[in-house]
């Protein structure tokens, strides 16, 4: 149900005529729902801008939030949504910020006039759609945020670093799922080739738990590295993980394990040292 052009201009006039009263009531309503997490001045600035946005959209002949005349208003609402999403507000709190305009408008209306009530229903419908638009924008912003973070996490969490001549290390941090394990595995093996390093240390100090699947991934990486002519040492196995490994009946076979990254590095340096002396 779209606004008629008469209703639209009456709404615009109303917002303009009661600019301060509506703005103050609106700000107060939002402040109550956000419980002080945004400063009053910040909120006031936002509501003033939004109010102007509504006003100029309606004055420009917008009958629905999807109209061309409301493009500016939509952009404002999108910005508000993504800002709120990034600040950690819920979708509810964000949408209510728009819906609160209804209460503010109700306060300044002349309740005696039955025509005013009909107008109010039409105004409300317009604000509802604006609120739903905000809700959608919020969800979109959140999804983008999550996708970005997931990608960053995958990049951040799988560094392969050169520790010593011929020694590279992967400090694994966080939960290893199948997809991540595959990324780690490929990246480690490629680094071995690129750097010509015959030793790799896989440090699992930062891995909270090891299940059969994770252990299998680590074992496969070690076997693949050996097929290529490189040796892997696993370091940072915590006591409870050692318990799990044994309880699950996972065979680490003859794979070298060390309790810390430092021990593993010392072990490797000793190995490379003896090899040099042999020559």
């Amino acid at each position, binding site marked *: 149900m779209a606004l008629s052009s008469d209703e639209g201009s009456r709404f615009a006039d109303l917002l303009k005529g009661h600019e301060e009263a509506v703005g103050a009531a609106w700000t107060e309503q939002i402040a109550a729902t956000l419980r002080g997490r945004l400063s009053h001045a910040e909120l006031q600035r936002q509501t003033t801008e939004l109010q102007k946005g509504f006003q100029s959209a309606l004055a420009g002949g917008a009958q629905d939030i999807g109209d061309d005349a409301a493009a500016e208003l939509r952009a404002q609402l999108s910005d508000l949504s993504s800002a709120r999403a990034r600040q950690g507000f819920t979708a509810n709190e964000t949408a209510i910020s728009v819906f609160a305009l209804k209460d503010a408008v109700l306060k300044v209306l002349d309740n005696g006039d039955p025509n005013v009530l009909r107008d109010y229903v039409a105004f409300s419908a317009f604000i509802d759609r604006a609120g739903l638009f905000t809700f959608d924008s919020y969800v979109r912003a959140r999804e983008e945020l999550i996708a970005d973070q997931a990608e960053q996490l995958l990049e951040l969490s799988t560094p392969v670093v050169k520790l010593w001549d011929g020694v590279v290390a992967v400090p694994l941090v966080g939960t290893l799922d199948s997809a991540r394990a595959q990324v780690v595995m490929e990246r480690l093996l490629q680094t071995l080739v690129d750097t010509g390093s*015959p030793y790799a240390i896989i440090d699992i100090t930062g891995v909270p738990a090891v299940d059969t699947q994770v252990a299998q991934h680590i074992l496969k990486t070690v076997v693949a590295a050996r097929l290529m002519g490189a040796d892997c040492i696993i370091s940072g196995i915590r006591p409870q993980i050692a318990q799990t490994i044994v309880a699950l009946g996972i065979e680490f076979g003859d794979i070298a394990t060390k309790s810390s990254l430092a021990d593993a590095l010392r072990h490797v340096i000793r190995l490379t040292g003896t090899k040099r002396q042999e020559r």
Partner: protein
Amino acid sequence: MERVPVLKIGDILLVSIQDDMEDQVALQLQEDLADRIVATGSHGVIIDISALDIVDSFVGRTLATIAGVSKVLDAETVVVGMRPAVAITLVELGLSLPGIRTALNVELGMEMLARQRAAEEDLGIDEGEDDEPAVTVP
């Protein structure tokens, strides 16, 4: 039928396998290498597979046979340059290339052979971990 060239560098034979070897070519290489080891008195064989984008069970078996035959003829075989994707696939396939020693590249492979010769010449020195098969299946 095409043949895989066998190069002699010092007392090492170097073979660089090119992409997509037919089965017959692989079998021919197996024979050629045995002949060349005896003819040249080489003590080491390096097989570079960095150009291979797959190693299936047939190629795997050929490599294992070459290593076995060379060993009998007193030459150590080192397979070098296996690509990561190939290694991951071999692990999934369950092919562990028992008895084959591996190195990341030709240079490291030559070092490995040199180290071993030196150890053998220093009478009585045990090669220790170097004597283990390249891979043990977990």
